[in-house]
């Protein structure tokens, strides 16, 4: 019961995932693809994702004590459960590795240009190890405390920098052309990868009836944050630049927006404050990923003491970060591997398993009813 989530805790955790991905510059990948049409593209994708949310929340009514791993076991037994678990673990590892590498690259470029990478990384990993061993309970409590200030920091992107904004940068509203905005731009649906949590949420809720409320509220909040961050990027960068952000290869577009926020002449170069606030989000995000990996591993192997798993998981992430090493690899991982992997998992395999589970459950229910009639 200690680890069960209330409405606020669940929404906080889901929102921090999106905030972290905004900080890690995922919105730049959206703008890269669809330019000024990103806002329309995002709304279009939100409508599609909402249909998915509606289906997911309705089907999960029938699986009040199951998550997607359990449902895969119902459909395909232990083999499918193993396969699905492994796929999820690989995905979560890749997310964690790219998250740590990206943030490490960012802070090293700004604050620690001459500091040994391993030293900065080890400080980061030790913190993660500590927080991971404290378990999911401390993480959810931390998230409820920091969510307010993190949300405000994203709003500050929009309201703090509006002196430098140019509304003309939002046009043409449909971007390059209709095909890019609505067809090629479908790839941008990866940004809704926070929806993966919906497949694991149900058995972890303190009140099962809150599931639908959590799904739609968190979706709305996350969509608003994504729209704000994308609008800030579009308003800040001239149209010609948003059409070729990839050519400039900016370190972190969101961070560049924060550099322009100035409170009179007294407080300028506010990016350090934002980095400070966002470091909480990133730590919480990575810690959540570690806890999720432990959660799935525990489901698979039923460990007696799962908190001891944090050490090998953190070590594996550390090795992954050291292997990636170069910024070009981080970009490849985020923009190619994770983009397609997110879509495959969120809107592909998890959804198919859920639908199949639903039909199997229905068939089972029908058979049971027939038996009862006989």
């Amino acid at each position, binding site marked *: 019961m200690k680890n069960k989530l209330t409405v606020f805790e669940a929404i906080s955790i889901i929102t921090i995932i999106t905030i972290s991905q905004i900080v890690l510059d995922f919105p730049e990948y959206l703008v890269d693809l669809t330019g000024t049409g990103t806002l329309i593209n995002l709304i279009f994708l939100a409508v599609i994702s909402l249909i998915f949310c509606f289906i997911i929340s309705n089907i999960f009514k029938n699986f009040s004590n199951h998550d997607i791993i359990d449902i895969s076991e119902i459909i395909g037994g232990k083999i499918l459960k193993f396969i699905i678990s492994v796929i999820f673990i690989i995905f979560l590892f890749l997310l964690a590795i790219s998250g740590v590498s990206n943030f490490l690259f960012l802070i090293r*470029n700004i604050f620690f240009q001459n500091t040994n990478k391993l030293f900065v990384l080890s400080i*980061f990993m*030790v913190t993660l190890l500590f*927080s991971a061993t404290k378990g999911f309970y401390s993480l959810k409590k931390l998230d409820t405390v920091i969510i307010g200030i993190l949300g405000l920091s994203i709003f500050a992107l929009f309201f703090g920098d509006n002196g430098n904004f140019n509304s*003309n*940068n939002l046009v*043409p509203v449909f971007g390059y052309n209709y095909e890019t905005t609505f067809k090629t731009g479908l790839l941008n649906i990866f940004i809704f990868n926070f929806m993966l949590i919906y497949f694991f949420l149900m058995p972890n809720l303190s009140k099962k009836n809150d599931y639908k409320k959590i799904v739609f509220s968190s979706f709305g909040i996350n969509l608003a944050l994504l729209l704000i961050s994308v609008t800030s990027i579009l308003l800040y960068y*001239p149209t010609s630049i948003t059409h070729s952000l990839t050519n400039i290869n900016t370190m972190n577009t969101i961070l560049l927006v924060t550099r322009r926020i100035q409170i009179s002449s007294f407080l300028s170069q506010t990016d350090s404050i934002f980095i400070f606030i966002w470091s909480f989000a990133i730590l919480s995000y990575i810690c959540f990923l570690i806890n999720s990996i432990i959660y799935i591993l525990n489901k698979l192997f039923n460990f007696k003491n799962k908190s001891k798993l944090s050490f090998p998981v953190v070590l594996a992430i550390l090795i992954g970060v050291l292997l990636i090493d170069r910024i070009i690899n981080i970009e490849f991982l985020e923009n190619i591997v994770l983009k397609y992997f997110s879509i495959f998992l969120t809107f592909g395999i998890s959804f198919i398993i859920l639908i199949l589970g639903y039909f199997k459950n229905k068939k089972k229910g029908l058979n049971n009813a027939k038996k009862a009639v006989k």
Partner: protein
Amino acid sequence: MRKKLLNKAIILFSLLIIFLLTGYVSSEENLENYYYVMAIGVDKGTDTKINLNIQIASNSSGNQDSDGGSSQSNSSNIYSIPCNSIDSGISILNNYLSKKINVSHCSAIIFSEEIARLGIKEYINSLGNNPEIRPTCNIIISNTTSLDALEKISNSTENFSSRFYEFLKSSAKYTGYSIIPELSEFFYCLNFSENSAIATYANVSDEILQNTGIAIFQKDKYLGNLTVLDSIAYSLITDRLESATISIPSPNDSTKLIDVLIKQTKKPEIDCSLINSYPFINLKFSLEYHVLSSTYEIDTDSPSGNSLLENSINTYIQEIVSNFLYQISHKYNVDICNFKNKFIKNYLTLDEFEKIHWNEIYKDSYFEVETNGKIESLGIFSQE
């Protein structure tokens, strides 16, 4: 009990790490270990590619070793280094000086006209890549060498500090005589051929440095400079003008001048359309006028006299703006007011917009300027 203590230790340790990670605590970051750069100057080199001039703040006693000098110090030293790039020049200086150079307080980057004509993209890009430098740093093009400009600034009788450059910037708002060219905007414009970069043009003469208008660029090469009146016109079009004082010829006697303070009351209405495949741009300005000098021949208290003066100010401003617009489009073919973005509004996709071939038709644009200005005050004594 032990567990509680351990928990507290973990929390404290985590907080400490966050502070360490965000660079708030570091022995290397001690302020005394740095020389703070106030301005950077770049000139064409003789044996090397460039001559890098760096103006560093020092305390008034001139003893730099005891104190790195704050960026608000009232004296400075200028170091000149022949080198091939800005970064290598800073490295050479770091090797020579007793403290590390920090450019986080740099308020201006001055290029000589000579080097600006050859192209400055590589220097702007390397500065833009430096996380220390502020994106709000000014870009100034000097008619003489940047070393000369920096020396003139240092030797001026004004109390000098990096704030001097900030005042240059803020004065643009209330004089309209120059613009506010920031590094970030300049950087973005330079990297895209369709947007034209602009900078402040500074004139060094009679031992003083003065903002005298706008330096315009085609790609990364300096093309020429516009006057202060063009600068006022630019500020009016881009809605950046708070107030400006201009002298207009008296409507009854063109040899006499009347000083007028103009203020923009509303954002200009800019309407763009295509007529016979050429851009037709209509601009409407809402202004208010404060007559500063006592008027002689005109009876400004009478409605006819008032409207005569009003009309002549309106006509004068229309002329200034029209001259400016035809100069940038027909003469220089640079879209510094970004009319392109206003044209894009009329199209839903970029593909549709690209069919009009903006870059080719812009130089044949036709402008119509309307000014709707009203005299708000006539000063304490309107007539003598």
